[in-house]
Structure formats: structure tokens, C-alpha cells
């Protein structure tokens, strides 16, 4: 099963995402922002980082890259996409996901081992988790505060589209403690925490993140 990881200029967690896919048993395929060829991958991960330095708004410039044109088109037809951190921001800027990620309430970059609960296991990326399962994966971002209109918030909650929710103290001012959401169809998921940095106990706070990658692989095998 081939899963792509896009490298934008300024992507940082691309190599970790490739490694996570391999550890989960998949074939990891590097994709480059400047090409629109998806190289026959069956799902794609938009990794964390500071694409284009995050200078204008996080994800604002990457959204217009050639590869995103292909991904947006495919995603609208059900192609599985996971956006992690900066990838989540790109998905919001692309309007594949609603809302926006804004400056953390305390204005600082925050790197922490974060407890989150998996609230929606009905996506190809989270099916392997138990509903309500609490996991610990790192957050590391300066603009992770999820904001949206009241209507959008209601829609997300009513339709069960909140995928991850922070447990305990709100780390960044996100509405309803939202740490990750999906689109209506469920194929597009964006999360602020980094599952790809929680795939080995040696280098992460847990191995809880690996299931994102195992889930999609299982889904693709059918």
C-alpha cells in the first residue's frame, strides 16, 4: 500500500511521517510540492513544519502549490488525506476542512506531551482506536488554537466530526478543546498533535500515534 508524504519548502516532519508509514508496514512515497503527480499513492499525509516559514498565515502559501491542486481534487472524491499540524493548517486554508488555526492563547510555541481523546473512530485514519480512547502524543506549534464560527462549531459537534479533543487544561485556547477534525465524508482529517512523533517509546512519549498509520493501511487493504 503506497502512502505519500508531501514535502513543502519548510516541511519538517516529512521524514518522520515517512518513517511512521514504513513502521506501520506501508510503502512510503515522498512527494514534492512543485509537482502535481500523486505517483499512484492511495492516501496522502501533509506533514508538520513551517511551510514557507509560516510567514503570512500558517499554510496560506502552500495551499496554492501544484500538488495541492491534485490533492484537493482527489479529496473531494473521497481520497484519504491526513494533515498533521502545518498539514492541518494547509487543509483549513484549502477549505477542505472548516475553521482556522490561530496563535496559541499564551502567544508561545508549545512543545508538550499532550493527552487527547479519540472522539471519532469513523475515519480511515482513526478506525483502529477505541471510541473515547485516551492517548498521549506531542503537540508542538505556535498556532494551534482552533477557531471557527458558532454554526461551524455546532455542525462539527452535531455530526461527530471532532476527531481528537484535548484532555485536561486547554493548552492553546482552542474552541471546545478541539485538537482534530474531519470533513463531512470523513476521508480528510486534520490534527494538531503529532502522531508521527509518537511511534517509538525510545524517541516519543508513547507509541500511541502509530495507529493512525496502521488504520489507514488496514483500510486500504480492505
Amino acid at each position: 500500500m503506497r502512502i505519500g508524504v508531501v514535502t513543502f519548502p519548510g516541511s519538517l516532519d516529512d521524514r518522520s511521517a515517512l518513517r511512521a508509514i514504513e513502521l506501520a508496514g506501508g510503502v512510503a512515497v515522498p512527494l514534492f510540492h512543485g509537482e502535481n503527480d500523486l505517483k499512484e499513492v492511495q492516501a496522502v499525509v501533509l506533514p508538520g513544519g513551517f511551510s514557507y516559514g509560516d510567514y503570512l498565515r500558517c499554510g496560506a502559501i502552500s495551499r496554492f502549490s501544484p500538488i495541492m491542486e491534485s490533492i484537493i481534487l482527489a479529496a473531494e472524491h473521497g481520497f484519504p488525506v491526513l494533515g498533521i499540524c502545518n498539514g492541518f493548517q494547509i487543509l483549513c486554508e484549502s477549505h477542505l476542512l472548516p475553521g482556522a488555526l490561530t496563535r496559541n492563547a499564551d502567544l508561545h510555541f508549545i512543545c508538550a506531551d499532550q493527552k487527547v481523546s479519540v472522539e471519532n473512530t469513523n475515519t480511515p485514519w482513526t478506525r483502529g482506536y477505541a471510541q473515547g480512547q485516551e492517548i498521549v502524543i506531542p503537540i508542538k506549534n505556535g498556532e494551534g488554537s482552533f477557531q471557527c464560527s458558532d454554526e461551524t462549531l455546532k455542525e462539527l459537534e452535531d455530526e461527530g466530526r471532532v476527531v481528537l479533543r484535548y484532555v485536561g487544561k486547554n493548552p492553546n485556547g482552542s474552541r471546545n478543546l478541539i485538537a482534530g477534525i474531519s470533513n463531512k465524508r470523513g476521508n480528510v482529517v486534520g490534527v494538531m498533535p503529532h502522531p508521527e512523533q509518537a511511534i517509538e517509546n525510545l524517541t516519543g512519549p508513547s507509541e500511541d500515534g502509530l495507529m493512525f498509520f496502521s488504520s489507514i493501511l488496514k483500510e486500504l487493504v480492505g
Partner: protein
Amino acid sequence: MAMIVVEVMLKPEILDPQGQAVASALPRLGFTFAQSVRQGKRFEIEVVGEPTAEQLAEVEKAAHTLLSNPVIENFVVKVEK
């Protein structure tokens, strides 16, 4: 050369932690004038010659698609000399 300015501010209903941080720092430094503070962005765009109506329309479009995120922000386009 003329200058077109695009001002982008967070919508009033969106949390503005940067503005809030300024608002609470001011009284600590003895400044008491502010009722509230919002912080936004200002883009100064240099264009050749007098800005035309088409050019301004283009800037509006760029402000809408790239310079601001309509989900959370409002913008204003102005011409300055």
C-alpha cells in the same frame, strides 16, 4: 510609484490573544488610555504609476484569497500616496 495598503484584522468575534497581551501590558507600564486593543496586519504594496481600477480589483482579489483568511479575518484596501 503609488502605494496600496491592505489592512487585515481578525473578525471581532475571533479571540485575539496578541491584542489582549498588549492590552494587559499597557497598564503594567503605566499607560491607561486603552479600553481595548486589537492587533492585525498591514501590507504595503508598491505599484507602478497611479493605481487603476482594474489594479485595485486585482488587489481586492489577492486580499481575499491570499492576504486574508475570510474564515477569521476582514480586510480593507486603501490607496496611499
